[in-house]
């Protein structure tokens, strides 16, 4: 049985920009977690090693020699889209883009190619993905996660750890925790993630952590309502107090005119029967109640 979605113990990942500060630091943490980091790529540094991981000049070479199927990208923003193209062309099917500040125009092109090839792109501007106990392809602190039954999809970083920690403390744990990314253009939507969690046996409930900007939450609410989603879903939406026209830290967290308000999202969830937590700590509480009611715990 699959423990989580998108990645697992068999995932063989490369790290793009492995020789950089971030890349090298998190390679060590991912290796420590047990993730199979099979190779790294930094153009011009081919032939060297980082934490005993061999480094190549091109993704093609790294992927072919080590039979990789995933990549995590730490490449600086101006070159990150190109890095994603390189990974897609090398046939890596899951790509985590940690990089922040990628121009929208570039992100749009990356997602178009990903759609064509059927590549899963997590991010950009994401903490990554973790299937506790199996695989961590990201920069999240491992200690707040515990193998369990809640699938988390979030547009945020630290707030996710906050809520995940609550879920861990409540002894529910996570099947997978996935950061969709804080940018306006990201590879995965709540709807796509909900579909995956729907098919995943390990996942008994889903937590959606949204924020202002865009309409991914509204689309998720519509999907849940029209499809009659079977697993319990709890939502939290950050940014109720955010003024319009201001970016709240994330490039994607902005109310534009009348669209993208927390209110609109919360109303949409409520209408779809999704319980919305008022405070981060409530997410775990509501999940516990719902899961008890449904006799999962």
């Amino acid at each position, binding site marked *: 049985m699959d423990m989580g979605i998108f990645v697992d113990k068999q995932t063989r990942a490369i790290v793009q920009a492995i020789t950089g500060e971030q890349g090298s630091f998190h390679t060590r943490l991912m290796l420590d977690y047990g993730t199979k980091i099979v190779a790294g790529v930094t153009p011009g540094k081919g032939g060297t090693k980082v934490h005993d991981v061999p480094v190549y000049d091109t993704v093609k070479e790294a992927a072919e020699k080590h039979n990789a199927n995933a990549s995590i990208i730490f490449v600086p923003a101006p070159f990150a889209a190109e890095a994603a193209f390189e990974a897609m062309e090398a046939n890596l099917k899951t790509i985590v883009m940690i990089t922040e500040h*990628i121009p*929208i125009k570039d992100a749009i092109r990356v997602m178009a190619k990903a759609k064509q090839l059927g590549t899963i792109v997590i991010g950009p501007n994401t903490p990554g993905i973790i299937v506790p106990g199996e695989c961590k392809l990201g920069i999240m602190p491992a200690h707040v996660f515990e193998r369990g039954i809640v699938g988390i999809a*979030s547009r945020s*970083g*630290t707030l996710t750890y906050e809520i995940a920690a609550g879920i861990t403390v409540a002894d529910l744990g996570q099947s997978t925790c996935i950061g969709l990314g804080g940018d306006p253009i990201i590879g995965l939507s709540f709807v796509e993630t909900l579909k995956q969690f729907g098919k995943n046996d390990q996942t008994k409930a889903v937590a959606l952590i949204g924020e202002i900007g865009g309409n*991914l939450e509204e689309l998720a609410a519509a999907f849940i309502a029209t499809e009659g989603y079977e697993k319990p879903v709890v939502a939290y939406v950050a940014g*109720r107090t955010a003024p319009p*026209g201001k970016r709240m*830290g994330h490039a994607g967290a902005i109310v534009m005119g009348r669209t993208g308000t927390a209110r609109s999202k919360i109303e949409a969830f409520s209408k779809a029967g999704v319980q919305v937590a008022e405070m*981060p700590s409530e997410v775990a509480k509501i999940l516990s109640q719902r899961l008890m009611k449904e006799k999962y715990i």
Partner: protein
Amino acid sequence: MKLFEYEAKKIFAKYGIPIPKGEIATTPAEAREVAAKLNVPVMVKAQILVAGRGKAGGILFADTPKEAELAAEKLLGVEIKGVRVPSVLVEERITAKNELYFGITVDRALRCYVAVASSEGGMEIEEVATRMPEKVVKVFINPIYGFQPYHARQVAGRIGYAGKQMLSLASTFFKVYKLATDYDVELAEMNPLIEKTNQEFAAADTRLIIDDNAFYRHREFENRVTEEETKLTPQEREAQKRGLAYVKLDGNIGIVGNGAGLVMATLDTIQLYGGNPANFLDVGGGASAEKMSASLKIVLSDTRVNAVFINVLGGITRCDEIAKGVLEVRKQVGFAKPIVIRLVGTNEEEGRHILTEAGIHVLSSMEEAAEKVVEMAKAGGSNGYGYIR
């Protein structure tokens, strides 16, 4: 980054998009000169970046140079929607047979650019979309093949034009797309795009928002950013200099946290407990002691603030670094305002230890801390009552 109307119009003109004749003026006398030179009835338009400028009285009509001078006098230096008017655009007044809309923006859900057009311009396009959805034409742009001239013709046809007018509109739409791509825009908009009585078209008002993340491809805006800085509050300026995400809000509780989502949630929680945040400040991921102390100093320097909430959940961020940063501030400038600290996560023990050693109490629950800080702020944040002295 939003460009002023006159800046946007310069760029539109560069692409051969017809715009009304006009010039910028920063004094009433200049406005008079421009109007005299144009020698036609003019509009005097406040150059501010807030929406709804027209309704708020930011656009005045003038039939003579003298009237233009008076209009400029009325607008310059006045605050509209809380923003001081630094300059006015004095522009020929064009009689509109029809007011249209055309814009290129980003569709986040479909992950593509979208061209939006309407035969009903002059008001916000969201309003048209709500009131007359059948009047809004949307064409989603294939990221690989782009918006082609024939797409522009399809759009021009669908908003009701044929023959030469269709061709002329399509040509303008295509130029806007070209501009939008070249300049990495989040929004490029003509509203209203005017159909004149002679059947020709002119972009009477234009808006451009450039993707900040693409500035490295548009070095020409670097100076623009520097100019903008002079209009920032001291806190905003300092945060920008240090690459911190900072947004000024209306309240009196200063906030420092790590992670945009967590800080937003902190603001929301404060409000739930009846408090009013004074700012959004994300110290960022993996912040050093130095970055933490800079952040805290920014918040403390805000005279409106009478209590501070530090909310940190350590992931890549290490609690000991945060603690060190806090102590550094106390050493350098002292704590004139009460501060509530919630600190959990990576190196939590070390961080708590550093702070408690220094006599500073640390909380674990975000909600408890939020409640506490709201209480303090309500009490006027008098130092005597402060959680931390």
